[in-house]
């Protein structure tokens, strides 16, 4: 693409210099943003109308309004909030455990060639296994319970954090480390002032990736067997063909995933305010 551009640009620039000017019909960005909502909203309306007119069997595809009513009902009279809390707790616990292990191992390997020799090959071998394939084994080890779910989430979180931490530390500019020596920093100060801040963008990328894996692990673990949580709600609803509840749980999983990503982005913007890629425009 780059070569095509450079080969065509001089010719077109010579013949028609006004080609550099952006197209006249460039629309107002707010209109464009509004326009992007058109298709989903339209789809929702068609779906609702078709369901109201009885064109879709409700046990296959419930009306959006029905899902909304179910959400309200379950939140007020049912166990929706309780189940949501349990799912969040599992995710948080698994994330904390897996994140700590991944960060600790990644830091050790990033710093020391000896730690790399001792650890990295084993981690890479375990990483080659799709972690969800371990589920039957994990159930045999830990049974169907909280431990099994948290373990699975932790397993999914460990590797993205590990890899990105190692990578981040390796990528720290050696010239800055040299500067640290000139300025007389000790090892601890060197790590705190130069290595960890330098590795942070990469670590946060790992966090965002790990959040996605954590949700995937949670959905699978809760679907296999649970007596509480969003996944339990879904499987319980399946028994009674309550498609509206199933739809609701899917929606909740999606919403939580989106919010987790939003939180991670906010974190990046705050922690990486110095970084040109994350800087708020015009801000200091």
């Amino acid at each position, binding site marked *: 693409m780059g070569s095509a551009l450079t080969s065509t640009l001089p010719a077109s620039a010579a013949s028609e210099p006004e080609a550099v000017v952006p197209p006249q019909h460039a629309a107002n960005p707010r209109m464009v943003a509004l326009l992007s909502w058109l298709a989903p909203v339209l789809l929702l309306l068609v779906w609702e109308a078709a369901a109201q007119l009885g064109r879709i069997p409700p046990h296959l595809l419930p009306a959006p309004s029905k899902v909304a009513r179910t959400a309200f009902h379950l939140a007020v009279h049912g166990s929706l909030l309780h189940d949501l809390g349990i799912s969040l707790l599992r995710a948080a616990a698994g994330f904390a455990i897996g994140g700590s292990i991944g960060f600790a191992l990644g830091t050790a390997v990033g710093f020391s060639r000896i730690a790399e020799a001792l650890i990295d090959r084993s981690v890479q071998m375990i990483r080659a296994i799709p972690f969800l394939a371990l589920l039957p084994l994990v159930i045999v080890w830990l049974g169907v319970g909280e431990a099994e779910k948290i373990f699975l989430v932790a397993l999914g979180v460990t590797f993205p954090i590990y890899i990105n931490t190692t990578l981040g530390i390796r990528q720290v500019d050696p*010239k*800055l480390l*040299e*500067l*640290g*020596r*000139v*300025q*007389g*920093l000790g090892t601890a*100060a060197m790590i705190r*002032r*130069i290595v960890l*801040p*330098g590795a*942070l963008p990469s670590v946060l990328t790992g966090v965002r990736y790990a959040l996605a894996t954590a949700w995937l692990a949670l959905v699978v673990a809760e679907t296999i067997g649970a007596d509480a949580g969003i996944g339990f709600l879904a499987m319980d609803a399946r028994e009674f063909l309550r498609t509206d509840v199933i739809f609701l749980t899917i929606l909740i999983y999606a919403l939580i995933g989106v919010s987790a990503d939003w939180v991670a982005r906010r974190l990046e913007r705050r922690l*990486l*305010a*110095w*970084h*040109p890629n994350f*800087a708020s425009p015009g801000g*200091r």
Partner: protein
Amino acid sequence: MSALPPAVRVVNLVRRYGGRTVLNDLNLRIERGEFVVLLGESGCGKTTLLRALAGLDHVQGGRIEAPRRPAMVFQEHRLLPWDPLWRNVALGLQAADARARAEAALAEVGLGGRLDDWPRNLSGGQAQRVALARALVQKPELLLLDEPFAALDALTRIRMHALVKQLVARHRPAVLLVTHDVDEAIALADRILVMREGAIAAGYFVSDARDPLALRQSLLAELGVTTFA
């Protein structure tokens, strides 16, 4: 001046990389408060000498007597992009009033109002001024400058010369500046040394030169550049 021990004394320094001898029995003495500029072609060992003085490189033979912690400014500014300017200047300062001292140092280089600004908002010349502030805030007895102005445009470079002169006159560290630029050397130095094949080949006191143009000619001749003036 010579009654006091010198700021730097280097005796018979030897540094080899593989089979190549980069520093070959090099001897050097810098008095306290003296501004010495080291000229030489690329690969003559100037930077190696500077790095040895900074303790960033080990040598195979000879002796170095230099202040334990000289300050150094590199060709690149090497500011930490994640720290605001004052934290960059205060890097390695152990004082409780680090921020105040960083503020004073930034004011000295004309960036007093920008304590909390990020390095990415600086021009090349401004970034190099912060690097100078970071070096001087340490109150060094020896200041090592490794082609610090090489990447700047000609006008900014001239402004930086004036600033360095003024700062050095105030803080009186001994200075060793490495450069390719003969005019920079004449503008700044008390003494100019020409380095060739890993040793000091010639030395000139700038104050002795009656005619700066003649000094320029002889320096260029030492560097193997013949002009037809």
